[in-house]
């Protein structure tokens, strides 16, 4: 099929508003800017090749995220040599009920110093949980969009998010309190 300039421009125009978000997500998937660029480019080319199957009027953002995720899974993740955590052995995804959730003033006291701990905790998460969390919390995709992007049921999106957030809360609460005690005079 010969692809006209109009199709190309239409596709580029649709991608443009989401490019930063796609790159951010790719960066969080791969952990490297160069690899993220490669991933975005690969997804972009795949998206363009499949553009004729995109139903006009449906959610382009979720459609592109699905392509990005599939590209990542098929092209990048399988090539990664180091084993990734695939179970919860290292990361207890059950919230500890004994841990009191953080209060706003406790969070504000340590502020952005929590960022490193959050990054470490996220890196240890099983990938499928991390992705759901990133797409929801940082990219503001709706549950339905995430379900569509990752091709999983909405119920799975919700349970993964719930478990991930509960576990992060527990871990970050402990960390924030330790930070505060460490900095106390």
């Amino acid at each position, binding site marked *: 099929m010969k692809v006209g300039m109009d199709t190309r421009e239409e*596709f*580029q125009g649709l991608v443009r508003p989401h490019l930063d978000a796609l790159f951010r997500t790719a960066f969080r998937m791969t952990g490297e800017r160069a690899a993220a660029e490669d991933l975005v480019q690969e997804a*972009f080319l795949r998206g363009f090749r499949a553009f004729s199957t995109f139903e006009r009027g449906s959610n382009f953002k979720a459609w592109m995220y699905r392509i990005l995720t599939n590209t990542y899974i098929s092209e990048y993740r399988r090539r990664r*040599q180091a084993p990734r955590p695939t179970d919860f052995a290292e990361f207890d995804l059950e919230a500890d009920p004994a841990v009191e*959730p953080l209060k706003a003033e406790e*969070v504000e006291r340590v502020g952005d110093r929590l*960022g490193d701990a*959050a990054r470490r905790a996220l890196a240890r998460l099983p990938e499928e949980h991390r992705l759901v969390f990133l797409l929801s919390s940082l990219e503001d995709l709706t549950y339905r969009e995430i379900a569509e992007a990752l091709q999983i049921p909405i119920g799975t999106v*919700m349970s993964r998010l719930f478990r991930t*957030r509960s576990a992060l809360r527990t871990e970050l609460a402990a960390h924030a309190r330790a930070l505060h005690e460490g900095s106390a005079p």
Partner: protein
Amino acid sequence: MRCHEARHRLDPFMDGEISVEENLRVLEHLNLCRACAGAFEGEKALRAVLRRTLGASDAAPAGLEERLAAALASPAPATTRTPLRTRFRWGSLAAAAALALAVLTLVFSHPGRMPRAVASDLSERHDATRLGFCGQSARDCVCFCSDCNEDGEAALAPFFRRHVDYDVCTHPIEGMGYRFVGASVWDHEGRAVCWTIQRDDRGRTITHGLVATPIAMGTRPVFLPDAASHPVIMTPSCQPGMTCVFVFDDAAEAERFRKAAKMY
């Protein structure tokens, strides 16, 4: 609504994912219950910190949009090229370094696929080519051992000429104890990759592919130690618009090559 119900709904409530009716019930509970309101405020503050620290300023790199557009617009390479009748050979690693330096002075700004993606593809080919093709000489591959081929390495240039209409650089790496064991021509995204395979006495292999696929890279060699299953070094080729890709068995050998070729 009880506390445990409200806590369970806190996330979808904050994500805007519950019905209007449930939304009102959660709000009502938060107005009445100080403990749950505290948990809600804490979660709100935590989300703000995570957003600030994890989500900040990862804008797409400058020029990415233009590179993507160029990748879409990138035409297939011309089917006929002016043949270069000079066959480049690296007699020694010193010559290799000299050639690399000469090549680096050329402006090489070809829009195209990202190096890492191409390296990943080619790195996988290393496993298929690394042992050579002894006893299997066929249209797309040739073995240089005396049993298979009387001409030995001299068969290299005619073999490539049968497949592509440009001369293929081959880069002997004798200085590191490698010698040619075979060559092949395989397709990469509809374009030829001309491979040579060299092996040393310990059975270590370096494959070299001359790649005609446009790759978005600068004028300096690119070292990709973890591109895929094997480390890869790419350098702009002496052929305009092409790239030399070296694939190594392991990181130690790639490092030895880089040091020997002064490729830092």
